[in-house]
């Protein structure tokens, strides 16, 4: 299994951070992975300026990779501005998982990112280009 299921991935899967739904919230979005039909929703609370994330939660059922990726990604969001969120690089989301992700599981790793981009742009975002994410690797 090429070390995909390292302990910390499984820990995030069993007890994901930022899991559930925030109510009230300022932004909400839901999207799905067409390969498996997994659905994920995300709610965000913003500060008074409505430009900075103060809280985030994601919900839905999915595989270990999609759940761990959303769990790890959402840990980073508090304090970020919406512009910073919109400029997040999907390569870093994949790299932050710390395990080898191939083409077959890339959508799993990026489902949380895609839902988040939908939430901060208001429209369903495209899947990041596979070749870009897999071949160029993480940006520093």
């Amino acid at each position: 299994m090429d070390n995909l299921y390292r302990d910390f991935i499984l820990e995030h899967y069993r007890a994901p951070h930022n899991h559930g739904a925030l109510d009230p919230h300022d932004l909400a979005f839901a999207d799905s992975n067409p390969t498996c039909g997994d659905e994920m929703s995300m709610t965000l609370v913003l500060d008074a300026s409505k430009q900075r994330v103060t809280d985030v939660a994601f919900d839905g059922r999915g595989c270990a990779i999609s759940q761990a990726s959303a769990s790890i990604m959402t840990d980073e969001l508090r304090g970020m501005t919406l512009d910073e969120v919109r400029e997040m690089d999907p390569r870093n989301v994949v790299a932050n998982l710390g395990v080898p992700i191939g083409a077959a599981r890339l959508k799993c790793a990026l489902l949380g990112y895609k839902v988040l981009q939908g939430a901060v742009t208001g429209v369903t975002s495209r899947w990041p280009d596979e070749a870009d994410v897999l071949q160029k690797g993480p940006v520093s």
Partner: protein
Amino acid sequence: MVTAHVQPGVFDGAALRADFPVFDRPHRTGRPLSFLDSAASSQKPRAVIDAVADSYAHHYANVHRGIYELSEDATHRFEAARDALARFIGAPSAREVIFVRNATEAINLVAYSWGRTNLRAGDLILATEMEHHANLVPWQQLAAATGASIEYVAITDDGHLDFDDLRARLARGPRLLAVTHVSNALGTINPIVEITRMAHEAGALVLLDAAQSVPHMPVDVAALDVDFAVLSGHKMLGPSGIGALWGRRDLLDAMPPFMTGGNMITRVTLDGADWNEVPWKFEAGTPAIAEAAGLAAAIDYLEGIGMATVRAHERFLFEHAWAALSDMPGIRFLGPDDSDEHAGVISFVVDGVHPHDVATILDGEGVAVRAGHHCAQPVMLRYDVPATTRASFSVYNDLDDIVRLTDAIRVTQRTFGTA
């Protein structure tokens, strides 16, 4: 004389694997490959690969065109493939067999050509909840285009079509029933003879999705008494890019072309065209010539084993796999548990582990399975699962594959600490 007990009708899948070059390819783990995803697409025997290469090397020219030896040779072989397929599926005439890309295209052909000609606003189309998306979406589109409505026959908790529901919906007078022979997501074998009798009594035509049955059991479209049947070559040990529609001659004759262009005409002027006869009326443009040769070789290979033997072999594997998985904790099945009603397709859920994770861990053990909704999202919704893991069998599988499958599921459960 002492005779070893041999399971009736079952052959040595491992010996047969020698015919399939893919099994010589080393898996990255160094383990043998257990290929359990034949319901998605099957592997190809050397005979099929050679037939495709031989077509290009020695028999290739465009068909139905050239007045020269090579073209006549190519045309003869292409039409011989049609004859072979007609015989294989019990079609009364090879003229009723139309080559298309795959079962999906065949269904679209009927939906566009028959459907848009014959359906009116207020007409009813009947499909079932267990259909592949290929046997749902074209009918939904047809309904939207014509103003017809579409309803779906329900499935029971144990994975059968609900006959009470079928009876009730047939009483509403649908024009057509689109039904699968074998469910790719549940493994259910539907009792088509009975379903067709009921549908015809109600005045409905029957389109049979035979993509999952023709590769795995004897199928005779005349005996089943359906009106249309569709299949894909790539699921029956043949090449991708070729499939077929079989249809009753009177229906095909009355249908307008689906796609238009060369080959499907008899005469073209700048004002219009006259259509060729069936089947060529429906075969616009240059067809899959080498693939037809490969398909004929696949049919020859399957007939060499015998379809009743293929079915017995896969039934034997199904029974062993079902029993072995039933003995394990934390496994839930979809579909009927009776092997009379279940093809060599096992759809299951490992409690606490998403099917994608199951498939990834199984891949690490050399076991190739499908994980997902199997292009049958309504089935997933019906059983309230986002996805399942699916193991499906073909002639090259044997009991070792089932041992590797169950061992790999145990690895999965250990990894996730669920059993």
